[in-house]
C-alpha cells in the first residue's frame, strides 16, 4: 500500500469538509454553504485520486474514466436541475441507488483479486450485499414515490420469507468466504440474491413510509462505501462512508420519532393495510360528508378573521404552491390573518412542505410548526386542509386501534370551520379513514387543488 503524502493530505481535508458540511447543513443560514464545502472537498478527492495515482496506467483507461465522469456529470446535473420540486424526494432515492450499485460493482470486480484473503473477501461480499440491497431497494422506493407502484404488495408471510432470504444470503456469503471458492457464478448468485432481497424489503412498505426507507438505504450505501474504504485502506472513503452511515441512521430514527413509530414497525409493520383481517386496520368511520361549493368557501373565508392552511402532498402533486400563496396574499389584503400549519411529516419527506412553499417566497414567519400552531386552532375561523389527510386525522388521538394512534397531529378539528380540499374520498397514504371528514364542522371541497384554489381566488377577487 503506497501512500503519497499529497494525496493523503487532500483526503484529510476532504474528510473534514464532509464533517463541516454536514454540520452546516443542520442550520438554515449555513446549509447551502455547507453543501458547497462538502462538494468542493469531494471534487478535490476525486481529482487527487486520478492525478496523484502512483503506477503505470494506460492512457485509454484515463480516457474511459474521463468519459464516465463526463457522462455522469452531464446526466446527473441535467436530471437534478430539471426535476420539479415535487419530485425531489424520489430523485434523492434514485441517486442513492446509483451509489449503492457503484459499491456493488466494485465488489464484483475486486473479488478475483483478493482470493485467499479471508477478511478482504468478507469486506467485498459485505459491500456487494449492502450495495445491491441499497440499489434495488432505492429503485423500488423511487418507483413508489413517482407513482409507478403505488400499492404495497405483500406476498403471504412476507416477513418470514424476507428474513429467511436475508439469513440465506449471510449463510451463502459465509460459505463463499470459508470455502475459499473462486467461483464467479456463486458471486453473481449472491449479487442477484441481494438484489431480490432489496426489492422484497421495500415492496411491502407503504408509500408514506418511503422517507424513512430512503434514509435507511442512504445509511446502507454509506456503509457500503466505508467497506470499500476498508478494502483499499482508503481513508476518505472510510470517513465519508461511516459518517453517512452513522448520520443516516440517526436521521432515520429522528424521522421515525416524528411519526411516533418505531423503525421495526415501519419495516415489518404492514402499515395501512386496510384489507387486513382487522388487527390493524383501524375502525371504519361511519357517517355522511358535507360538500361545499367554491363560492360558499370564498364567502366563508372573506368574512373570517383568521385562516390556517394545512398543506399536504396533494398540494405538491397539483403544483398548487403558487396558487395557495396568491390566495394567502389576497386574503391578507382583505384583512384576514393567514398562516400555514406545517406538520413535520406532511408531504412525502420531512420538510417537504417548507421547501415547496419557500419556492413561492411565502414569508418565513407564516410557516408555523405543529407545536406552535396547535393551541391556535381554537381561535381559528377556518382551517383549509389542502391535500393533507393523515396529519389531521383525529384517530391519532382517540382510536387506539388505528395504526396512526399516538402520532402527533395538527388539531384542525378544534377550528370553527374546516374546509377539506381533496380530489376524492380516497384515503391518504396510510390507507385509513379520516373521521375529520365526517365532522359536523367539516365541508369537503372536491377537485384538483390548483384548480380549486384558482377558482377561490377568482371568487374572492369579485367580492
Amino acid at each position: 500500500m503506497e501512500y503519497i503524502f499529497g494525496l493523503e493530505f487532500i483526503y484529510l481535508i476532504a474528510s473534514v469538509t464532509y464533517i463541516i458540511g454536514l454540520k452546516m447543513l443542520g442550520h438554515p443560514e449555513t446549509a447551502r454553504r455547507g453543501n458547497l464545502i462538502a462538494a468542493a472537498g469531494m471534487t478535490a478527492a476525486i481529482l487527487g485520486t486520478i492525478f496523484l495515482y502512483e503506477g503505470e496506467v494506460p492512457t485509454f483507461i484515463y480516457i474511459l474514466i474521463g468519459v464516465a465522469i463526463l457522462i455522469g456529470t452531464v446526466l446527473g446535473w441535467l436530471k437534478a436541475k430539471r426535476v420539479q420540486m415535487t419530485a425531489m424526494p424520489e430523485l434523492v432515492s434514485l441517486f442513492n441507488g446509483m451509489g449503492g450499485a457503484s459499491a456493488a460493482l466494485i465488489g464484483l470486480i475486486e473479488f478475483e483479486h483478493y482470493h485467499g484473503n479471508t477478511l478482504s473477501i468478507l469486506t467485498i461480499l459485505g459491500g456487494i450485499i449492502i450495495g445491491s440491497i441499497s440499489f434495488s431497494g432505492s429503485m423500488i422506493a423511487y418507483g413508489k414515490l413517482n407513482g409507478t407502484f403505488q400499492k404495497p404488495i405483500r406476498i403471504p408471510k412476507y416477513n418470514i420469507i424476507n428474513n429467511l432470504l436475508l439469513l440465506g444470503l449471510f449463510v451463502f456469503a459465509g460459505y463463499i468466504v470459508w470455502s475459499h471458492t473462486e467461483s464467479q457464478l456463486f458471486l453473481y448468485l449472491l449479487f442477484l440474491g441481494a438484489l431480490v432481497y432489496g426489492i422484497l424489503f421495500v415492496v411491502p412498505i407503504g408509500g408514506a413510509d418511503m422517507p424513512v426507507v430512503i434514509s435507511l438505504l442512504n445509511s446502507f450505501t454509506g456503509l457500503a462505501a466505508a467497506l470499500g474504504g476498508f478494502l483499499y485502506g482508503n481513508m476518505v472513503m472510510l470517513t465519508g462512508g461511516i459518517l453517512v452511515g452513522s448520520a443516516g441512521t440517526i436521521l432515520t430514527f429522528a424521522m421515525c420519532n416524528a411519526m411516533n413509530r418505531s423503525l421495526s414497525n415501519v419495516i415489518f409493520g404492514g402499515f395501512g393495510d386496510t384489507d387486513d383481517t382487522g388487527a390493524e386496520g383501524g375502525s371504519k368511520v361511519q357517517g355522511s360528508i358535507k360538500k361545499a361549493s367554491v363560492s360558499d368557501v370564498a364567502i366563508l373565508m372573506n368574512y373570517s378573521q383568521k385562516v390556517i392552511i394545512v398543506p399536504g402532498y396533494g398540494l405538491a402533486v397539483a403544483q398548487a404552491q403558487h396558487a395557495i400563496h396568491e390566495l394567502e396574499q389576497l386574503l391578507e389584503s382583505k384583512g384576514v390573518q393567514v398562516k400555514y400549519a406545517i406538520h413535520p411529516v406532511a408531504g412525502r419527506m420531512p420538510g417537504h412542505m417548507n421547501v415547496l412553499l419557500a419556492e413561492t417566497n411565502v414569508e418565513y414567519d407564516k410557516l408555523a410548526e405543529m407545536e406552535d400552531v396547535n393551541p391556535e386552532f381554537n381561535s381559528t375561523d377556518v382551517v383549509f386542509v389542502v391535500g393533507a389527510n393523515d396529519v389531521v386525522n383525529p384517530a391519532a388521538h382517540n382510536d387506539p386501534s388505528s395504526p396512526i394512534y399516538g402520532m402527533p397531529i395538527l388539531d384542525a378539528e378544534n377550528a370553527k370551520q374546516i374546509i377539506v380540499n381533496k380530489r376524492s374520498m380516497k384515503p391518504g397514504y396510510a390507507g385509513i379513514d379520516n373521521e375529520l371528514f365526517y365532522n359536523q364542522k367539516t365541508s369537503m371541497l372536491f377537485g384538483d387543488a390548483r384548480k380549486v384554489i384558482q377558482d377561490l381566488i377568482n371568487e374572492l377577487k369579485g367580492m
Partner: protein
Amino acid sequence: MTELIDFISNNLQMIYIVVLMIFVGVEVIGHVPAVLHTPLMSGANAIHGVVIIGAILVMLGADPENKLALSLGFVAVLLGTLNVVGGFVVTDRMLEMFKKKK
C-alpha cells in the same frame, strides 16, 4: 482467531477512525430541526458518493486486457458520478429555496 487478532493490530488506525466517525456522525445530526431533514438526507446522500473513489481505483488498477472488469468499472464510475453530482446539485436546489427569505 489469530487472523482476527492480526487484523485488529494491523488496522488499528482504521478501527479508530470508524469508532470516532460514528460518534461524529451522531453529534453532527443531533437536534436538527425537522425542516432540514430532507436537505440533510440529500446532502448525506451526496457524500456517500465518495464510493466513486473506489470505482476510480478499480479502473486505475485494472488489467487493461480484462474487458469485463473495465466495463463494470466504467459503469461504476458513471453511477458514482451520478450519485455525487446529482446529489450535491439536488441538495443545492432544495437549499436555494430556503435562501430566498428576506
